[in-house]
């Protein structure tokens, strides 16, 4: 029998992981810094950041106008002088980097690292500074301060910066409400348990163990371990209160998406493009789940309300309401894989991404502008949580009985003789094709988000 709820040390944890900063922060910048000076000099600069890093502690005096968080890549740890031995205690995929996993992740063809934006995936990105701001003026000021501190320190440069901003209605560029469905974490977001936790019998849900998302705490595997072993983590002091971060810049071809869906809808239910698109996504644009509302969205749906995500798939085993291969069903199958959720509950991610780029107004042709989603996730294990979902649930369909069908929303550049398709279950079924590269990977990194004392240890050069 597990102990009473694990207490999470919020002072030692960076913010925006267990609890989102929220949609008041309209503006975000991701600045990837490359260190060219010796580690000692870099650590002096790094020390200067620490007073400004936003922790997970609840805000007592209202929301700060800006927030700052820090993450490091494997090459970044080395550039900051962390020893090879300590770096070796980090996970294999983190050390190898995201671009080394390109085949496995489906970053091939137009999404291959060869085509990525400057510096991303090359090892030259060392430290990621994430700045969130409520107002544009504060955002600009924070960026100025960041650059000034770097100039003062010398020996480092921003090799890549991506700015992002919320779109109206908290939508992403294909028009869908996004980001509100998150895992429920015991001791941090128990209120999200209905729908966000592990589905149990009798319709109940339970929150997930914190160790699924923060290192140094019991996870779903070890929470009942009589020997009280903790999950694998980097060597102390770096492991405690840290987490791994996945950062991906995903270009969205909005004009292509709209065109393909409009064309395909001509043969579907008398041209109901909204319904066809909802079938691909698994929700209507306002977030109403398709499995509970298969014919039209719920006018009273409130994505932020408690229990908004309280739905299951076991009443729809044939996918007649929500297709078996729809995006949200793939990315979080809930109870759809049987065995009381045993095949799904260890593959959850906390997502904190932001859209980037200007929206493309309805009806306008492709303007070739850069727009899409900065995908950000936090998880204790990149391979078990991010990579497994990407490889097994999004880039393949076998576990859902869909052979090698991939997620249609993300799309895939048709390679070889087999153009992709999606089966929309129904009477009769509808076959949606062609699958196009609606989403292209423009770059990404695997990073580690150290806890507050770990950041201090890195800055002091006392990581062991």
């Amino acid at each position, binding site marked *: 029998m597990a102990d009473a709820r694990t207490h999470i040390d919020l002072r030692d944890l960076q913010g925006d992981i267990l609890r989102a900063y929220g949609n008041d922060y309209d503006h975000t910048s991701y600045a990837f810094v490359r260190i060219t000076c010796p580690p000692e000099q870099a650590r002096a600069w790094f020390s200067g950041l620490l007073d400004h890093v936003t922790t997970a502690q609840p805000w007592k005096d209202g929301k700060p106008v800006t927030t700052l968080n820090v993450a490091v890549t494997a090459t970044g740890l080395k550039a900051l002088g962390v020893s090879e031995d300590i770096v070796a205690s980090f996970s294999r995929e983190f050390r190898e980097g995201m671009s080394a996993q390109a085949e496995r992740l489906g970053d091939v063809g137009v999404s291959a690292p060869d085509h990525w934006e400057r510096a991303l995936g090359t090892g030259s990105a060392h430290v990621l500074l994430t700045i969130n701001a409520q107002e544009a003026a504060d955002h600009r000021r924070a960026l100025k301060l960041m650059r000034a501190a770097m100039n003062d320190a010398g020996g480092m440069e921003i090799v890549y910066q991506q700015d992002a901003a919320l779109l109206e209605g908290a939508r992403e560029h294909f028009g869908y409400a996004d980001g509100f469905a998150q895992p429920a974490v015991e001791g941090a977001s128990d209120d999200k348990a209905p729908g966000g936790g592990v589905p149990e019998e009798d319709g109940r849900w339970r929150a997930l163990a914190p160790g699924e998302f923060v290192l140094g705490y019991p996870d779903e*595997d*070890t929470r*009942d*371990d009589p020997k009280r*072993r903790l*999950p*694998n983590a980097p060597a102390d002091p770096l492991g405690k209160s840290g987490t791994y971060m996945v950062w991906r810049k995903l270009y969205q071809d909005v004009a292509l998406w709209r065109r393909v869906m409009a064309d395909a809808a001509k043969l579907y239910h008398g041209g109901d493009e909204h319904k066809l698109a909802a079938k691909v996504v698994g929700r209507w644009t306002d977030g109403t789940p398709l499995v509970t509302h298969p014919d039209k969205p719920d006018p009273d749906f409130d994505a932020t309300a408690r229990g908004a995500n309280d739905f299951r798939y076991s009443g729809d085993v*044939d996918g007649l309401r929500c297709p078996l291969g729809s995006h949200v069903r793939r990315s979080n199958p809930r109870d759809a894989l049987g*065995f009381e959720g*045993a*095949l799904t509950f*260890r*593959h959850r991610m906390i997502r904190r991404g932001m859209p980037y780029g200007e929206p493309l107004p309805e009806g306008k042709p492709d303007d070739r502008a850069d727009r899409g989603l900065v995908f950000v996730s936090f998880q204790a294990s990149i*391979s*078990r949580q991010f*990579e*497994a979902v990407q*490889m*097994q649930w999004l880039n393949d369909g*076998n*576990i859902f*009985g869909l*052979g*090698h069908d991939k997620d249609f929303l993300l799309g895939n550049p048709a390679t070889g003789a087999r153009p992709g398709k999606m*089966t929309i*279950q*129904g*009477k*009769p*079924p509808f*076959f949606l094709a062609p699958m196009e590269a609606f989403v292209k990977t423009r770059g990404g990194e695997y990073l580690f988000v150290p806890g507050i004392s770990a950041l201090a240890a890195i800055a002091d050069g006392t990581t062991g």
Partner: protein
Amino acid sequence: MYFESNFNGGWEEYIDAFSHILTSGMAAFWGSSYGFPKALPVGPFKEYIKENEIANSHYHSAYPEATITMVKASLELEDKLAPLKRNAKRMDPDAFAAAYENMLTDAQRSL
């Protein structure tokens, strides 16, 4: 004990699934082997597997792209398609179209 398995999907998720779903079955298989740390928690069991894993020298499949699920779906599909293939030429177009639609509806879990 010599254990051999062919599976698709990742190694980690495969073991996780086994450990959570077949916990007592695993004890039955490995309980008599030295060093078996129990199927749960999964961390130590994964270490045990890694320590005892032997690299394949040669693995052959006559249909390497196909999973068991796909093979079974394909065989079931043949059963459902066979009557239509047999009768297609004999039917009038409207009857055929209806039968074809019924076949697709019936077979959609295989497609």
